[in-house]
């Protein structure tokens, strides 16, 4: 056996190469069979040459010994070119790349009036009521009358013949109302002499249906007392009148509950604020008639006419406060969720006050609502008990019958039970046609509606008589009262929304602030400032309009669907995204810069050594 050269390729490769060379030459015996033509037609001899490039070939130059690194030797100009290329790339990356990356990953944030918003945080509200005090003849002595400046003097005579005492007061009030023009929010107080017979003896103040009040002067006209003293003496009584007719401390704190700490408002005002709906741009009112027994009772209610006559006047008056949409429906086979108990002493079925709380839920599942709007819904239900459970009366805690036979739930609506067993006897042919007395029903619903909308059940101070609103639904001073508390509430809510929105946008740097949001915020801030200015000036109607504008703009800005905070990235996620992108690019650049820096330093050190 000859000694083989150590770098001879392995035997298999030899065989393979020999096979190939024989194939190329063409001396290998050919096998007959079906495979022959296709294989050799696919792989003609000249194609086999291409394999020579794939197979390993022997090196030309001798393999260097292991352990010795061969570095390509570069000449100086090449090194210089390399260095300037690295510096140029680094400069490009730093000068153009980083600003480009910064700009393209920036979120668009439109400009917000941050200074004005921070002013809103320390908002001081000043409410001004215009009061006109009119002294009737006989209340002021002639000297005091002379002291009154000429511009304030007005001679007016009013004559009427009074048929009866009670009507007299109403007529007087009505006539006085026509005398003076009162704007929204203002109050006119007429001081009448002590001896006047217009007011009964025990009554000190009479508040009419419009914005006027009659105050019995209790200051004896002392000779020598000046006008200021008279006015000062009347101050506490006038303040009481104003607190009843416009607003008092509890009303304002109740309206500001959003921004105040809890515990500052009293129990009564808390109950009132819980009962009435919060300020909203619109409300939906639904009147439903529940007839669980159509086989016996065929009910007819003329709800459209009743709404026109009794409810719409109130809603028209409330138009500056909110939009209302009213609808009505009749539900058949709708039952109350509780079983009433039969009380033999009253020979009627009774619902106790505690079971009333469980009545509402089963019924509510059957009531529909307008799917298109998200306004709060007030439901007023009229339930006519079925013939087996008639009559049905509601008992309060003291087991006494309730006159109205109705109850209401805060922020939901009211339910009235209407008994019809008196309309037919035992031997009538069923079903019986029954017409519902809408005036009685609407009387109850109207009072419940007033409670839900925010007209409080204020107890009148002693000696006061507050004229009932009657068919109009609401007196003008009651409406003014509501407007005051609504304006304050709107201003408070709008400023709270704007300040919390600004705080939120500050905290989360990733949220995109579109132009429309910035515009809404700006218009909300402008409207807020206008509302505050109008409240200071005493123009209640304008103040309410501006405050409504402010609150709608602020709500639209706060609840804009584009302000979604889905942009929380924990730090490790940020690294996980950026490192695969930037590390392979930045590491060579940095290392080459470092290398250049070190070479320059070395060069400088050499130069210094040479010099030395």
């Amino acid at each position: 056996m000859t000694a083989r050269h150590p770098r001879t390729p392995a035997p298999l490769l030899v065989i393979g190469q020999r096979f190939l060379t024989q194939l190329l030459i063409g001396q290998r015996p050919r096998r007959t069979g079906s495979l022959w033509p296709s294989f050799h037609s696919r792989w003609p001899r000249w194609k086999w040459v291409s394999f020579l490039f794939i197979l390993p070939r022997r090196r030309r130059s001798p393999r260097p010994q292991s352990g010795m690194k061969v570095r390509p030797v570069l000449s100086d100009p090449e090194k210089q070119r390399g260095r300037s290329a690295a510096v140029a790339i680094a400069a490009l990356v730093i000068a153009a790349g980083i600003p480009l990356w910064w700009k393209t990953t920036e979120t668009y944030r439109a400009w917000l009036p941050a200074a004005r918003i921070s002013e809103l945080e320390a908002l001081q509200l000043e409410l001004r009521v215009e009061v006109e005090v009119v002294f009737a003849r006989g209340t002021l002595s002639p000297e005091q009358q002379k002291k009154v400046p000429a511009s304030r003097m007005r001679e007016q005579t009013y004559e009427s013949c009074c048929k009866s005492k009670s009507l007299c007061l109403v007529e007087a009030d009505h006539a006085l109302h026509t005398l003076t023009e009162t704007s929204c929010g203002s109050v006119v107080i007429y001081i009448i002499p002590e001896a006047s017979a217009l007011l009964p003896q025990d009554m000190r103040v009479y508040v009419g249906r419009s914005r006027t009040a009659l105050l019995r002067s209790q200051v004896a006209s002392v000779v020598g007392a000046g006008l200021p003293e008279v006015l000062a003496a009347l101050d506490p009584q006038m303040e009481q009148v104003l607190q009843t007719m416009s607003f008092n401390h509890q009303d304002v704190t109740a309206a500001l509950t959003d921004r105040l700490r809890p515990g500052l408002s009293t129990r009564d005002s808390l109950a009132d604020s819980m009962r009435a709906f919060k300020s909203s741009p619109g409300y939906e009112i639904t009147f439903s008639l529940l007839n669980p027994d159509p086989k016996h009772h065929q009910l007819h209610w003329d709800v459209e006419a009743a709404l026109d006559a009794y409810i719409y006047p109130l809603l028209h008056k409330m138009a500056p406060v909110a939009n209302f949409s009213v609808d009505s429906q009749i539900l058949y086979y709708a039952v109350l969720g509780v079983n009433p108990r039969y009380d033999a002493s009253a020979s009627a079925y009774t619902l106790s006050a505690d079971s009333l709380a469980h009545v509402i839920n089963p019924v509510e599942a059957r009531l529909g609502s307008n799917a298109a709007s998200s306004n709060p819904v007030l439901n007023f239900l009229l339930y006519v008990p079925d013939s087996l459970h008639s009559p049905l009366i509601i008992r309060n805690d003291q087991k006494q019958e309730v006159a109205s036979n109705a109850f209401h739930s805060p922020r939901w609506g009211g339910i009235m039970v209407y008994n019809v067993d008196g309309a037919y006897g035992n031997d009538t042919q069923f079903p019986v046609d029954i017409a519902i007395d809408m005036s009685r029903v609407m009387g109850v619903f109207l009072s419940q509606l007033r409670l839900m909308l925010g007209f409080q059940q204020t107890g009148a101070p002693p000696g006061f008589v507050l004229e009932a609103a009657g068919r109009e639904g609401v007196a003008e001073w009651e409406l003014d009262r509501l407007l005051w508390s609504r304006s304050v509430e709107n201003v408070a809510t709008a400023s709270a929304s704007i300040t919390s929105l600004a705080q939120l946008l500050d905290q989360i740097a990733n949220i995109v602030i579109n132009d429309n949001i910035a515009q809404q915020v700006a218009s909300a801030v402008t409207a807020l400032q206008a509302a505050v200015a109008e409240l200071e000036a005493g123009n209640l109607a304008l103040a309410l309009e501006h405050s409504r504008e402010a609150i709608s703009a602020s709500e639209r800005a706060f609840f804009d669907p584009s302000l979604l905070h889905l942009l929380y990235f924990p730090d490790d996620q940020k690294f996980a995204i950026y490192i695969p992108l930037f590390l392979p690019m930045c590491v060579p650049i940095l290392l080459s810069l470092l290398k250049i820096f070190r070479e320059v330093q070395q060069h400088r050190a050499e130069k210094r050594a040479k010099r030395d």
Partner: protein
Amino acid sequence: TARPCMLISSSVALDFVLIGRTSAFLLLHQARAERFFRSDHTNNWAVLVCTSRFWFNYRHVANTLSVYRSVKRLGIPDSHIVLMLADDMACNHRNPKPATVFSHKNMELNVYGDDVEVDYRGYEVTVENFLRVLTGRLPPSTPRSKRLLSDDHSNILIYLTGHGGNGFLKFQDSEEISNVELADAFEQMWQKRRYNELLFIIDTCQGASMYERFYSPNLMALASSQVGEDSLSHQPDLAIGVHLMDRYTFYLLEFLEDIHPASQANMNDLFKVCPKSQCVSTPGHRTDLFQRDPGSVLITDFFGSVRKVEITMETINLTVPGIPLERFGGEPHTETALAYVDQLPVAQIIHQKPKQKDWHPPDGFILGLWTLILLVFFRTYGIKHLKHIF
């Protein structure tokens, strides 16, 4: 019906000493006023979310539906419930009992029921939609049933279930919500006063990590397991083939089945649900952000909807006196009785008596079949047998 006498006496005993019967009435009135103010809420909302899809996550849908069922039974109407189910198990192709979702093995309790209203279904259950529902930032075209229209006197119950980890909850196997985002969403709800009090219940693995970051007031949170622990499932059903419920929600459902709308059970009882011996994981809760004492918070404050009710004392006199209640229409009208058109011929569908069909001579198919049989017979056995027939 409720048991009113017990209700009054228990609240009176809580606040006042019952001296005598005559003074009891005054005390009762005050007790009612106290009850009005014991909790500040006037309405209840519930947001129930199941975040996992696929058939083997049947138990998460069953969890959510069992809480839905309890909440509806205790009084919250569908209009106040936002139910989000990420997958449809009741009508899944692999469900051997379609239109049902069971929570007990041997198919004892069908929590799907007849009356389910799912607001967000399937692929609509995403982190984005969930956060939009909570914060209220929905597009204006969203219908009312898909919105959380709560106000500053609403108590909200939020229930989440699915697969979770330390600090996150997985939605739909493709995205996750982190505890920081959830805490920020609650803070935004508080800024707009969209809740009075909020109860947050989560039944996932390492659920306690989800409420670690809360910082808004009036939040109470319960979780089925601590950080580092897994929440386990309860029973598989061999017929359906998957696990039906998770342990925590199973025992929670058992607890809630004993609650009725007038129940006085409080939150301390809820904290005791599913101890470690039953649940294997350790349930946790967090009450430091809650202002009231948990012992005074009723279960029905969150799970039910007990309305505050006031008697209407004042009415406005709109009637003109002297006009009696009149009867509408004097004589009864003779109207033709209205009936539905016979759209469903029930008599034909339900065969109570077999209809007498007319006799028809055998048609082509039967004739051909018999001819074939005869031909084969005679071919096999020979034509000579034909003479035995004819």
